[in-house]
């Protein structure tokens, strides 16, 4: 049915149907975010030998995050006098919207995908960069020293790590010869790119953690240095949207990692292909999310100068080298 | 493209460019890894050696007929060789001036960059002169422009330098955008960016709307390029930039950059717009139709340059207006479109190169010594340093077009070119001659300072740095040689470049 829809003349009807489907996805993602936060707390609790949320929220704290959201919703909203009001209001929207838009291009299985773009990967990278603007806008609009500093740091960090991130996937593009995410998954039929491109994977995962502003790269919002970074003046639901954007990004990035390096919906071994692709995808996806949470509870925060130098002096050369290593190996293999 | 095709290209024709590129790389790396204590002037000499190497390489490439590589994007025809020769000689002299450049607040930190940015700009100019494709042409132009922007502002702490660089960037950006917008139309109507392919396409155009659009494109490209050569309507930047930029940069802008600009104008105009028929195939070319427009701009440039120069007190500003005027004379060559166009342009640019660079060498020496750029600083120069004063007099006389100097022969060439065509450009020539007479006022104003006025303080002794000495010597020699025996240059041109007949091949 969806196939027919995709091949029909675009119009209002299509728009409506897509809208409904997208809303469903949005709800799924909101659900994910709700429980990802809970999972994060729980996992970290376990790892650090503490209890995760256990006082409210019913069994296993399942309603904890729900309660959090309600609390944020009911909280009074203040905008500082000195703030640039229009920008202050706009900033969370700018931060959130791109994080959601990128998900449109990600193939969850060979069937379950919203937009099959030829330039899927480029699209993802291009759009994901926009969030930075939201953060800087928020920091600037607040007219607060912490916020502005946090915003600038966020921008500096994100643009610095954007480069190795973008360059690390070049190896994959070289091997696949396409920017289409479906093609990239299909090319991993025999062997996953995590094995063919281990260096790229490492660079990618580090850069993506930095892009997500997560520990150990969470300097823009480090509580003890900058109080809370660019969103120090935000409260209530406006603040919630910054948080939401971050977790939706985590969702998107984990999905992308799965697609790029872990073979997407493909089974681990071909004899296991009776298990549906969606399940495989979910498993791998959850593994990546777990990995991210694991990082958070184990690594200490990096110092700001080390952070920046790490991106430029280590990750970037490695990523560049990886590209040419890939190209040269490919060239050598062609000779045989 | 496979390896065979790649290797089948005759890469040797790019040797001069490769040499310059290699030297740039080498210099930048050396600058980075050399100890702080090592004098960076060493890099300057190295760069000079590179330029001379490229010059030698270019000379060995001479007389091979047109060669193209990379699917016609890079072409080495006699036009390219002849004008690259000027670019290289000009740059070599600029380099000598730059090596002797010692501004008051020092340049130690940026001296290395200073040199290889010059080379980068030179590389851009060289690419421009040999490219057969709009894209490479554009890239060359921008490499030249962007390097020049930085060069103009290289004295970071000097607010005049900052200001001139800023004005240069803004003006340059605007004109680049206009040019590229014009180019986009030309591309759109031909579907290719290769100049000769374009020419082949436009020759068959018959749709009057397309012609109209191309006319629009012509104006945009021409107006945009007028920035590079500092002619009206885009000359306004020149005085400010020339005044604020470091003197070697000013010299570079006024000579090498201008030469490159004319190369570009001739390439684009002659190849594309000369082939556009205005009323169906075989009719009068667009370029001839807009000749009057070019002539008008040339006249405006000459008048503005020469008249405004009369009011100047700052020597560099004076020379800025003088160079605007000179660009106007050169535009007369373009406007007249005679059979002698290439010869005349080449000879005048060559003469202009020597006389202007020589003058700038002396200007640098004086302004550096006295710390002021006022024309009054030249007072009593004859008493203090007679040889310097006489050399300066030679350059100024040449700029003014007095017989016995290269400038006169150049002007003679221009007049002849403008008068030999049918219908002859009497008005344009008259304006040119009249403005030349106007220029006597300010040129001789400098002479009056040097020879008639007493010096403010006699104690200042001039120590002539070796680099400047060589520049001044070479320039005096060449200015007089090409003035007395211009056939040296003209025969060289006739003997080696075969009338530039391969320009359209």
């Amino acid at each position, binding site marked *: 049915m969806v196939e027919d829809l995709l091949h029909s003349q675009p119009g209002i009807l299509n728009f409506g149907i897509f809208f409904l489907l997208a809303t469903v996805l949005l709800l799924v993602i909101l659900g994910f975010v709700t429980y990802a936060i809970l999972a994060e707390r729980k996992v970290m609790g376990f790892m650090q030998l503490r209890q995760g949320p256990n006082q409210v929220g019913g069994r296993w704290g399942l309603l904890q995050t729900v309660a959090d959201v309600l609390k944020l919703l009911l909280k009074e909203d203040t905008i500082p006098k000195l703030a640039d009001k229009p920008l202050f209001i706009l900033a969370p929207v700018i931060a959130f919207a791109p994080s959601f838009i990128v998900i449109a291009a990600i193939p969850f299985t060979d069937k379950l995908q919203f937009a099959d773009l030829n330039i899927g990967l480029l699209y993802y990278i291009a759009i994901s960069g926009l969030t930075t603007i939201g953060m800087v806008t928020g920091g600037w609009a607040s007219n607060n020293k912490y916020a502005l500093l946090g915003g600038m740091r966020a921008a500096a960090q994100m643009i610095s790590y954007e480069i190795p991130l973008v360059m690390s996937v070049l190896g994959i593009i070289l091997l696949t010869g396409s920017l289409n995410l479906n093609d990239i998954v299909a090319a991993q039929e025999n062997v996953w790119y995590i094995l063919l491109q281990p260096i790229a994977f490492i660079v990618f995962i580090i850069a993506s953690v930095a892009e997500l502003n997560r520990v150990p790269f969470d300097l823009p919002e480090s509580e003890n240095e900058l109080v809370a970074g660019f969103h120090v003046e935000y409260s209530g639901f406006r603040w919630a949207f910054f948080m939401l954007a971050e977790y939706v990004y985590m969702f998107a990035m984990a999905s992308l990692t799965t697609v790029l390096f872990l073979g997407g919906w493909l089974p681990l071994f071909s004899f296991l292909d009776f298990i549906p692709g969606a399940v495989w995808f979910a498993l791998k996806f959850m593994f990546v999310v777990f990995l991210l949470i694991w990082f958070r509870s184990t690594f200490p925060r990096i110092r700001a100068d080390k952070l920046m130098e790490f991106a430029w002096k280590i990750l970037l050369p490695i990523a560049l080298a990886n590209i040419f290593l890939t190209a040269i190996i490919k060239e050598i293999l062609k000779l045989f | 493209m496979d390896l065979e095709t790649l290797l089948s290209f005759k890469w040797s024709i790019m040797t001069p460019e490769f040499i310059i590129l290699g030297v740039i790389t080498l210099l930048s790396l050396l600058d980075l890894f050399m100890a702080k204590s090592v004098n960076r002037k060493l890099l300057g000499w190295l760069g000079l050696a590179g330029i001379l190497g490229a010059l030698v390489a270019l000379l060995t490439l001479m007389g091979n007929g047109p060669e193209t590589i990379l699917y016609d994007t890079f072409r080495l025809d006699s036009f390219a060789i002849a004008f690259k020769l000027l670019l290289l000689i000009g740059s070599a002299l600029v380099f000598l001036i730059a090596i002797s450049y010692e501004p008051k607040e020092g340049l130690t930190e940026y001296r290395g960059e200073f040199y290889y940015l010059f080379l980068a700009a030179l590389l851009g100019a060289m690419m421009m002169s040999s490219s057969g494709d709009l894209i490479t042409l554009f890239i060359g132009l921008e490499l030249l422009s962007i390097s020049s922007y930085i060069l103009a502002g290289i004295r970071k702490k000097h607010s005049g330098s900052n200001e001139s660089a800023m004005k240069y960037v803004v003006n340059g950006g605007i004109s680049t955008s206009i040019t590229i917008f014009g180019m986009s139309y030309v591309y759109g109507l031909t579907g290719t960016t290769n100049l000769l392919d374009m020419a082949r396409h436009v020759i068959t155009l018959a749709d009057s709307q397309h012609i109209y659009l191309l006319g629009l494109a012509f104006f945009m490209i021409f107006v945009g390029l007028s920035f590079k050569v500092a002619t009206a309507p885009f000359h306004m930047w020149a005085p400010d930039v020339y005044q604020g930029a470091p003197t070697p940069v000013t010299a570079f802008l006024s000579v090498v950059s201008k030469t490159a600009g004319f190369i570009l104008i001739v390439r684009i105009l002659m190849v594309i717009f000369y082939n556009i028929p205005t009323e169906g195939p075989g009719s009068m070319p667009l370029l001839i139709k807009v000749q009057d427009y070019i002539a008008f701009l040339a006249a405006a440039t000459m008048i503005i340059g020469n008249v405004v120069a009369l009011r100047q007190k700052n020597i560099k500003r004076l020379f800025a207006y003088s160079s605007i005027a000179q660009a106007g004379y050169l535009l007369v060559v373009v406007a007249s479109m005679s059979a002698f166009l290439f*010869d005349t342009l080449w000879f005048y640019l060559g003469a202009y190169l020597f006389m202007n660079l020589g003058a700038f060498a002396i200007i640098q020496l004086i302004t550096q010594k006295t710390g002021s750029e006022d024309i009054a600083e030249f007072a009593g120069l004859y008493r203090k340093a007679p040889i310097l004063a006489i050399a300066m007099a030679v350059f100024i006389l040449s700029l003014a077009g007095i017989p016995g100097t290269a400038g006169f022969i150049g002007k003679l060439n221009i007049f002849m070119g403008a008068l030999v065509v049918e219908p002859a450009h*009497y008005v344009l020539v008259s304006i040119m001659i009249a403005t030349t007479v106007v220029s006597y006022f300010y040129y001789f104003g400098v002479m009056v300072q040097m*020879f008639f006025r007493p010096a403010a303080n006699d104690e200042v002794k001039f120590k002539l740095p070796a680099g400047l000495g060589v520049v001044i010597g070479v320039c005096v020699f060449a200015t007089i040689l090409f003035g007395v025996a211009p056939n040296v240059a003209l025969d060289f041109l*006739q003997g080696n470049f075969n009338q530039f007949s391969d320009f359209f091949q």
Partner: protein
Amino acid sequence: MNFAYLSILVFSPLLGIIALLFVPKAKESVIKTVGFLATLPALVLSLMAFFQYRSGSSLDRLDEMVNWIQFGDPNRLGELFSIKYELGVDGFSLIMLLLTAILSTLAAIASMYIKKEWKGYFMLFLLLEVGMLGVFAAENLILFFIFFEITLIPTFFLIGKWGYFEKEKAAFSFLIYNGLGSAVLLIVIMVLFARTGTSNIEALTYILTSDTDHLVMSAGGKMGLLIAMLIAFGVKLPIFPLHSWMVRVHVQASPSVVMLHAGILLKIGAYGIIRFGMGIFPEQFQDLAVLIAVLGVVNLLYGAFLALVQTDFKMVLAYSSISHMGIVLIGLGALNEAGIQGAIFQVVSHGLIAALLFFLVGVFYERLQTSNIPNLGGLAKGMPITAGFLLAGAMASLGMPGMSGFVSEFMAFLGLFKEMPVLAAVGALGIILTAVYLLRAVLGITYGKAHREFAGITDLRGSEWVPAIVLIGIIVLIGVYPNVLTEPLTSALETIMLGIGG
């Protein structure tokens, strides 16, 4: 034979420049001697050429031609658009050359009054001589123009640096007027060159005079070029509305420079009009003859009237020069043999007379620091010999028989009377005026009331005798035996008369 005879002649002063380079700048007497000696080779060579010519040998053998500049592709264009280095003389230019050489030598002697920077002065002086000699030897319009311009620069400096109070202003007005003049001339030359492809005077004359169907150039075009040329040379000559610079220069420049300026540089204008205006555009020149004659009369009267009211002797001489140049124009306007001969005679004779008078001005200015007529009164008592020469010069200038001025004025007016009697009658008034103002001025100086003591003032001495004697000698020689000039001029005149169909 005579390999590069003319080249050596023209460029011989350069030897002096080179020699001067090695002389320390403080050695005044050495510099002056070298400067003087450097003018001698040209003098000797031109005298030799003159006497050889008088003794009947042809001047053609002096012609030189070397390929110089070739525009465009020589294989395709051949001789077209090539500029050759061509030197050559005919009777007329040989006389001018000789005049230049003589006056240069004498002016070099008169340069003893220069007070400062002798080295620079003499270098420029010699360069100026090269330019002047070249102008008369050039057989090629572009070459002519180059020498013409070369005279401009040294003159500018000579006026601007070694002149009197308002020297710089004078230098600039000289530069701008002459710059404009030469600009116009350059346009004419370039148009001719671009249209015909040659700049050789003979070839041009041939092409343009045989171009009766106006294939090369329309009649209007030719007329335009001729008028432009008249303006160009008119500035130099100077013709009436274009003269103001010249007065300034004559007053402000040092005497030795003015000797050359009045003696030679002004004559280049006349030379140009005769050689090129008449030579290349004879038909058009005929159409303009009346105008030229009228201009001549205007010049004559205007100069004379203004000279009448001047109190400064230099101003009197300056306006008298304007007035005398009017006679040249009158002669030319007559368009017959007598007239043209008169014009040429006037060119030579005024050159000599003006040089003499300005030299004498230099002599007493040196001693008395003034050239104001009332201040000079009674000169005859203090400096009788100088006063005597002055009187003689004035007589020559106003056209006393037996001196060169008479021959030229007589012939010029004779010519004009034949063609335009009314105009000539009006012009004759100028002759009377000339007598009036010159006598007023000279008598005022020599016999006027003495306003000052002349004690301790020496008369002519040493080398000062040479210019005075030589000049007065030649003036008298021409006046008594005009054949020295008429004979060499015959063939040149014939050519000109052939052109204008007279």
